[in-house]
């Protein structure tokens, strides 16, 4: 479970995030939507302890993220390409992340093999450094790396952007499998309303740092969201 209380982030006098209360139960597939500057990435960055909140805190499975580092062992994440190490090949990168997450070489190879379809033969054995891959392929590597070492929480910022349609569909399948057993909490942000409504069982809309909608996904959700954003 991820609990957020009294959370705010201000730069000078400009408030970029202000969440009074948000509770994400374990195993939920949680979607965050909002226009540019709504605070989605800021929220994820605070959750990953990459920036400090001005007030309040986030507690990730009983661990307050800005006081202890123990959440790292069960949290996988991919925010943007700066999470990749450009001068490694995909295999080496997986091996590195696997090492940090307590997987041996055989574990890593077996794990990667599960994603053969997702990689579409463009990642493994290509003898290319990550910095030389296309944006979409870089993203695939980052997303898979975020799922390594059986994390309890997976955080993906804009996972659908830059992916081709086939891969988007495959990614949706992967995410729904991840949450099937209700053991992994998945947090996704996206600009694509169709994708989030398909994948997430709960959707929170942020606007200028505030929660304006908190919806349990149903048939009508997509329409509701579309009418909200069509101003």
């Amino acid at each position, binding site marked *: 479970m991820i609990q957020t209380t009294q959370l705010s982030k201000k730069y000078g006098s400009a408030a970029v995030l202000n969440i009074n209360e948000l509770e994400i139960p374990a195993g939920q597939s949680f979607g965050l939507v909002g226009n540019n500057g709504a605070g989605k990435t800021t929220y994820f960055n605070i959750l*990953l*302890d*990459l*920036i*400090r909140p001005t007030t309040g805190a986030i507690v990730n499975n009983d661990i307050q993220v800005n006081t202890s*580092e123990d959440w*790292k*062992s069960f*949290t996988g*994440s991919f*925010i943007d390409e*700066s*999470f*990749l*190490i*450009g*001068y*490694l*090949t995909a295999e*080496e990168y997986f*091996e*590195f*992340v696997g*090492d*940090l*997450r*307590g997987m041996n070489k055989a574990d890593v190879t077996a794990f990667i093999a599960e994603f053969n379809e997702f990689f579409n033969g463009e990642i493994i054995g290509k*003898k*290319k*450094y990550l910095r*030389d891959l296309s944006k979409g392929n870089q993203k695939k590597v980052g997303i898979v790396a975020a799922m390594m*070492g059986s994390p309890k929480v997976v955080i993906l910022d804009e996972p659908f952007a830059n992916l081709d349609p086939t891969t988007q569909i495959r990614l949706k399948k992967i995410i729904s499998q991840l949450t099937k057993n209700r053991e992994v909490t998945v947090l996704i942000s996206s600009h694509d309303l169709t994708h989030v409504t398909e994948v997430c069982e709960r959707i929170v809309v942020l606007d200028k740092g505030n929660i304006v909608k908190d919806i349990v996904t149903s048939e009508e959700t997509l329409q509701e969201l579309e009418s909200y954003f069509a101003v």
Partner: protein
Amino acid sequence: MISHFLNLEWKQYFRTANWQKSIFLNILLVLFALYFILSFLAIGVGGYWILKEMFPNQDPLIVVNAFLLYAFVADLIFRYLMQKLPVMNIKPMLTLPISKSKIVHYILLKSSFSFFNLMSLFFYIPFSVVLIMQGYDLWGVLGWLLTMMCGIQSVNFINFLVNKDTRVFIALITLLCCGFLISYFNWFNLAAFIGKGFDFLYQNPILALAAVLLVFLLYRENYNRLRNEVYLDALISEKTKEVNAADLSFTDKLGDLAPFIKNDLRLMWRNKRTKSGVWMLLMGLLYGLFFYPNPMYKDMDFMFVLVGVFSTGTFLINFGQFIPAWDSGYYKMLMSQNFKYERYLESKYTIMSISVAALFVLGIPYVFFGWKVLFVHFAAMIYNLGVNTHFILLGGTFNRKKINLDEKAAFNFQGTGAVQWLIGLPLMLLPMGIFALLNWLVSFEIATITLAVLGFIGIALHKKLMTAITKKYITNKYVMIHAFNQEN
């Protein structure tokens, strides 16, 4: 149109985050440039008389001419290593309504005014003025000067035609070495032979037009080549090379530090910036050769410490001063990964320690200059291991500048802030001072042993020091993440 381009250049220069942040560094660079300009000017103005004194029965102009071949070849080699055609930032221009030929002309003309070309003018122009004042033929000297200017421009354009072709580079080096050797053994003086050509040119200044023609032809050749390559998949693309992955499983012996050490090794030989740093290692290792053969330093024992600390610690200094900026590109990712910060720092410490020991072993031949030297080098190695490593790791907490690994190392000050300069000094001056003081007050043996003991104390306190340093890193974590996020 040109004014647009110049306007952009101006803004690019002054609006880089680096410019605003590090005035200190910029002042230093300006001083550096001024130093070069002044030394060139001094040689240019005084050169005539210096040569007159050194070779009293020869004409200084003829002496200069006899060296010109080497000057041009050396210039070309220098440019080969340092100068690159400035093409990368024209990408956004391609889709704008500017004709491609204009862009190409602009790139080429811009390269004509580079620092490399202007530098040597500070020698040639005053030298020519002196020649004229000394009663040399006005037209002859002007023709000669024009030829020199064209020569510089030709070298500039030849360099782009060569375009980092290693074969040409090897040929140039061979030419330089062979030319030197054959004239050293008095078989044939190639440079003097070419020099005769320049003498002839002084007598027939009209020939300078040939040099102008040469520049023109080279310019056209460059233009034709570039004009056909202003496409995203040609000139402007970064070439991707196939990976050759080395087996690094030997590092697995290092236990849980292995993943980081593997990464650091890959970091070093897969990125331009770090790769060209390897040359610095060689220079550092051979640093002692500047001092030891010179009888002037025979009795200055404290110089042993400088060489000892520097030659065993070049890697430590070059690599260590940019911890953790080396990882700045993916620092966010590291910070959200599952490991303890101490392990990360420990891996850096291990790499630096191994390098210090290895460089000491490689430097053992210095024993040729006396046992005392080796003795001091050993003490300096221990000092490096115990004190300087920790010191430089601590200095890393002040690093606030992102490093782009794809750029070259030499004269690349990216990622350098005042901290690097401030930290570099005590690394070497402190042990030198301690040693010099004790050597003067007590004895050579005590001074050397003290250095080693300081090192051993550092090694003994390693665990404690690392804990303290780690704490410092963790407190600075957010500031560093923020800073490494800024492009500069």
